[in-house]
C-alpha cells in the first residue's frame, strides 16, 4: 500500500495507494505500513527529505469508519479506546519527529484523518482542483479528530480560526484551505510532485514542527490570554445553543483545545485521545455514524431510497401532539419548548402559553424526561408507519431527522432498535402510550444490519 522511491538527490517519494479501493483511508493496516515506512526512512542514510503523496485522485478520504466498531465494542473502556486510537496518533507523531523534512503533496481531498496526516508533515501543498476538499467532519459524526488534529490545527493557524473548522465540520475547497493556512501552496496537478521536490531542494521544508521548537508560541492570542478567555466563553455558549447539550463532541473538542493547547505536544495528544475515547465509546457517536454514514451507505448500495415522508410526518406530528397534550395536562408550555430545544427536538408547531412568574430552576434530568417522552411518541408513530421493505427503516430515520427528530438518537427506528423492542415497548407503556404491533414485530431489528464494505 505504501511504495517508496528514492531519487539520486535523496528525496524519498512515498506513495499511498490502497489496493482495491477508490480512495485511501486511515485504518490499522495504514498505520502499520506508515510506521514501517517511518522506521525505514529514519534508518536510510541516503534519505534527505520525504514527499508523502497519493496514488489516487484524492489524498486520503478520512478514517475508515469500519475501525470504529472495534473501538466501541462491548467491554471496551474509554481508556482502552484511547490507547487504540493512539496507535494512529503515535505513528503521526513519529513522522513529524523523523528529523528529516517531510512534505505532503495532496492530489485532492484530505478529510478527517487524511488532513491529520497532512498536518503531521512539515509542509503541505495540494493540486489545484475544484473537487478537492479539506476539513474535519468528525464533529458531525459525534467524534473529534483523534490523531492530533485538535492540537496541530490551532498550533498552525491560531485558536480563533481553528474553532469553526473543528466545530463546524464543513469541508472547504482548496483555495479556502490555502487562505486558512492549512496549505502552504496550490500548484497545477501535473506540477504537484515536481513542486514538492523543488521545495525540498530549496530548503523550504523544515525538518521540525514549529511546536517542537524551543520558545514556540501559537499564532494569534495565546489560549490563556484575555482574548483566548473570551473566545472560549463565546464558543462554550455557542455550542450549548447549537447543536446543544445532547451532542457531546463540540464540548469535547473545546476541552481538547482548552486543556491541550497549554501543554507540550506529547501530553496534549494524550489529552486528545482521552476525549476521543470517551466520545467513541459513548452512544451518540454510534448513533450519528449509524444515521449519517451507515444508513446512507446502505441506501446507496440499494440504489433507491424508499419513500418515507409519511412516516417522518407522522413522527413530527406525534411529537407536536404529545407536546400539546403535556401543556393541556398542566405543564408550562415554556418548559415543554425548552425541554425540546435542550434535546435538539424541533417541535412544529411549538406549544404556546402564559409566562410563568417566579419560575424555579429545574434539574436537567426533569427536562430530559420530558424530552424522552416526546421522542418515544415520535418513535412510536414512525414505527407504526414503517414498512418491511429494504431500506425503508433507513429512509424513515433520515427523513424523520429532517423533520425535527434529533440526529443524536440515530433516528426513531434506530432508537428503538438500540433500546431493544421489548424494553422500548415497556418504556412506552409505562408512559401510557399505545404501542403499535410493528414494534413488537420488529424484534428490535427495524434495521437489517449489514457489513459495510
Amino acid at each position, binding site marked *: 500500500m505504501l511504495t517508496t522511491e528514492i531519487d539520486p538527490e535523496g528525496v524519498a517519494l512515498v506513495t499511498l495507494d490502497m489496493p482495491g479501493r477508490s480512495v485511501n483511508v486511515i485504518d490499522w493496516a495504514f498505520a502499520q505500513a506508515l510506521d514501517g515506512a517511518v522506521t525505514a526512512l529514519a534508518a536510510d542514510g541516503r534519505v534527505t527529505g520525504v514527499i508523502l503523496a497519493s496514488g489516487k485522485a484524492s489524498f486520503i478520504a478520512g478514517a475508515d469508519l469500519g475501525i470504529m466498531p472495534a473501538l466501541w465494542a462491548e467491554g471496551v473502556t474509554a481508556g482502552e479506546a484511547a490507547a487504540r486510537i493512539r496507535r494512529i496518533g503515535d505513528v503521526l507523531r513519529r513522522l513529524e519527529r523523523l528529523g528529516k523534512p517531510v512534505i505532503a503533496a495532496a492530489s485532492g481531498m484530505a478529510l478527517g484523518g487524511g488532513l491529520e496526516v497532512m498536518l503531521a508533515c512539515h509542509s503541505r501543498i495540494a493540486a489545484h482542483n475544484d473537487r478537492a476538499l479539506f476539513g474535519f467532519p468528525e464533529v458531525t459524526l459525534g467524534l473529534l479528530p483523534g490523531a492530533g488534529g485538535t492540537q496541530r490545527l490551532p498550533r498552525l493557524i491560531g485558536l480563533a480560526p481553528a474553532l469553526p473548522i473543528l466545530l463546524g465540520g464543513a469541508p472547504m475547497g482548496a483555495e479556502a484551505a490555502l487562505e486558512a493556512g492549512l496549505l502552504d501552496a496550490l500548484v497545477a496537478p501535473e506540477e504537484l510532485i515536481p513542486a514538492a521536490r523543488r521545495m525540498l531542494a530549496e530548503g523550504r521544508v523544515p525538518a521540525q514542527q514549529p511546536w517542537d521548537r524551543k520558545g514556540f508560541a501559537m499564532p494569534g492570542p495565546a489560549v*490563556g490570554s*484575555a482574548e*483566548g*478567555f*473570551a473566545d*472560549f*466563553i*463565546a*464558543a*462554550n*455558549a*455557542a*455550542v*450549548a*445553543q*447549537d447543536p*446543544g*447539550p445532547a451532542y457531546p463532541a463540540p*464540548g469535547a473538542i*473545546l*476541552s481538547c483545545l*482548552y486543556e491541550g493547547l497549554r501543554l507540550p505536544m506529547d501530553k496534549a495528544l494524550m489529552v486528545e485521545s482521552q476525549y476521543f475515547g470517551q466520545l467513541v465509546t459513548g452512544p451518540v457517536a454510534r448513533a450519528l455514524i449509524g444515521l449519517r454514514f451507515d444508513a446512507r451507505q446502505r441506501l446507496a448500495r440499494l440504489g433507491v431510497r424508499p419513500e418515507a415522508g409519511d412516516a417522518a410526518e407522522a413522527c413530527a406530528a406525534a411529537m407536536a401532539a404529545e407536546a400539546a397534550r403535556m401543556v393541556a395536562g398542566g405543564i*408550562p*408550555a*415554556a*418548559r415543554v*419548548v*425548552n*425541554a425540546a*430545544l*435542550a434535546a435538539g427536538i424541533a417541535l412544529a408547531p411549538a406549544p404556546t*402559553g402564559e*409566562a*410563568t*412568574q*417566579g*419560575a*424555579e*430552576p*429545574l434539574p*436537567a434530568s426533569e*427536562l430530559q424526561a420530558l424530552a424522552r417522552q416526546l421522542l418515544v411518541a415520535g418513535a412510536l408513530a414512525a414505527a407504526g408507519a414503517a414498512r418491511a421493505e429494504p431500506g425503508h427503516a433507513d429512509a424513515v430515520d433520515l427523513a424523520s431527522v429532517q423533520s425535527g427528530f434529533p440526529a443524536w438518537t440515530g433516528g426513531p427506528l434506530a432508537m428503538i432498535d438500540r433500546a431493544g423492542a421489548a424494553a422500548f415497548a415497556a418504556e412506552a407503556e409505562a408512559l401510557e402510550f399505545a404501542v403499535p404491533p410493528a414494534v413488537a414485530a420488529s424484534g428490535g431489528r427495524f434495521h437489517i444490519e449489514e457489513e459495510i464494505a
Partner: protein
Amino acid sequence: MGDAFIFDHLRTPRGRGKPDGALHEVTPLRLATTVLGALRDRSLPDTALVDDVIFGVVMPIGEQGQCLPRIAALAAGYADSVAGVQVNRFCASGLEAVNVGAAKVMAGQTDMVICGGVESMSRVPILSDGGAWGADPAVARATQFVPQGISADLIAARWGYDRAALDALAAQSHARAARAWTEGRFAGTVVPVRDGLGEVLLAQDETVRPGTTAADLAALRPSFAAMGAAGFDRIALTRYPDLAAIPHLHHAGNSSGMVDGAAAVLIGSLEAGAAAGLRPRARVRAFAEIGSEPTIMLTAPAAAAEKALKRAGMTARDIDIFEVNEAFAAVALRFIEALELDPEAVNVNGGAIAMGHPLGATGAMILGTALDELERTGKATALVTLCVGAGMGVATIIERV
C-alpha cells in the same frame, strides 16, 4: 468570643474606570496608599499598632498583583511589622476583608487591623485575570455558566421587573447620591486623590449625574441582547425552563459603573482601640457568606442577609438601614422584595449605579456609607450585603455603640 469594633473608615472618590477617568493616571498602589496614609494621619499615628492590612483586590494581577496590601503598607510608610494580605471573593471582596479582619479580632488573634480594598478598573480591566469559570468547557457545561448581565436580566424575567422599574431605581440612585454629595454627607469620609505635585485630581465621585431621569435612561440600548442570542439565553432557559424568554432590560445606565477607587476600615478590639486613643464607632454584630444557584447568580444577598440575621438573633425588622450593592438594578429590587423591605431604608445615599463599583473596594465603601448614615440619623443598626459571582453572597451587620 471578643467583639470587633470599627474605629474609623474612609475612601477615595470613585473615578470613571476608563482612560478618560480622573483617576486613570493613579496606580492602584497609590489609590491604596492614599487611604492608608489618610487613615494614619487621622486616627493612627503609630502604625505599629496595626497587625495587618487585609484588602480585597479582584484582579490581583499585573500592577495589582504581588500581594498589593503589604506593598502598599510599606509604600505608605507604615511600620515594617504591618503585614498585608489580599482576598478575593469577587464583588464582595471589600466586605469579605472586613469580615475576615473582624473575625480575627473576635477570635483574639489580632488586635488591630485595616480592612478594605482597592481596584483600578481603568488600569487592570475586569476579567483580565482569566479563570476557569465560563472558559473551561467542562466547567462551563457542568455549571451552566452565563455572564452576570444575563443573570441580571434573568432575575428581571423571573420576578417580572420591567424596564421602567429598573430605570426608576437607577434614576433614584443618581438622585440620592447627588443629594448626599450636596448635603455633605460623604464629606467626613472621602479623601481627595492628588497627583504627584499634590494637586487634587478628584474630590467627588465622578459618575454621579444629578438630574438623571428614568426618561433619560429609557433611551439607552440593552447591553446583553447579543450575548443572550449567542447562546447564553438558551443556557439560562435550560436552567429556568418555565420562562419562555429572557427580555434584555439592563443597560449601562441601570447597571453599576466600572470605576477606580480604594477604601479602608480600621477594626480592632476595645482594648487595642483604647491603647491607640480611639473611640469605637460601631460593633460588627454578625456576618455570613453563602452560595446559591450559580446561573441566576445574583440573588444570594437575601439568603446571606437572612443567615447573618439568624446568627445575630435578629430579623430584618431589627435593622434600621440596608446597603445592597447595586451591581444591577434587578439585584436591589429583588433584595428589597425578598426581605419585604421599605425601599426608603435601602441605599439611602445612592449606590453603585450612580457612583460605581470598584470591585475590590465596594464592600468596604458601602459599609462605611451605612455607618455614616447611622450616625447622621441617630439610628443604630445596618446590614450591608453584596451579590457575588458564581452565586455567592456576603452580608455584615453592624450596630453603633
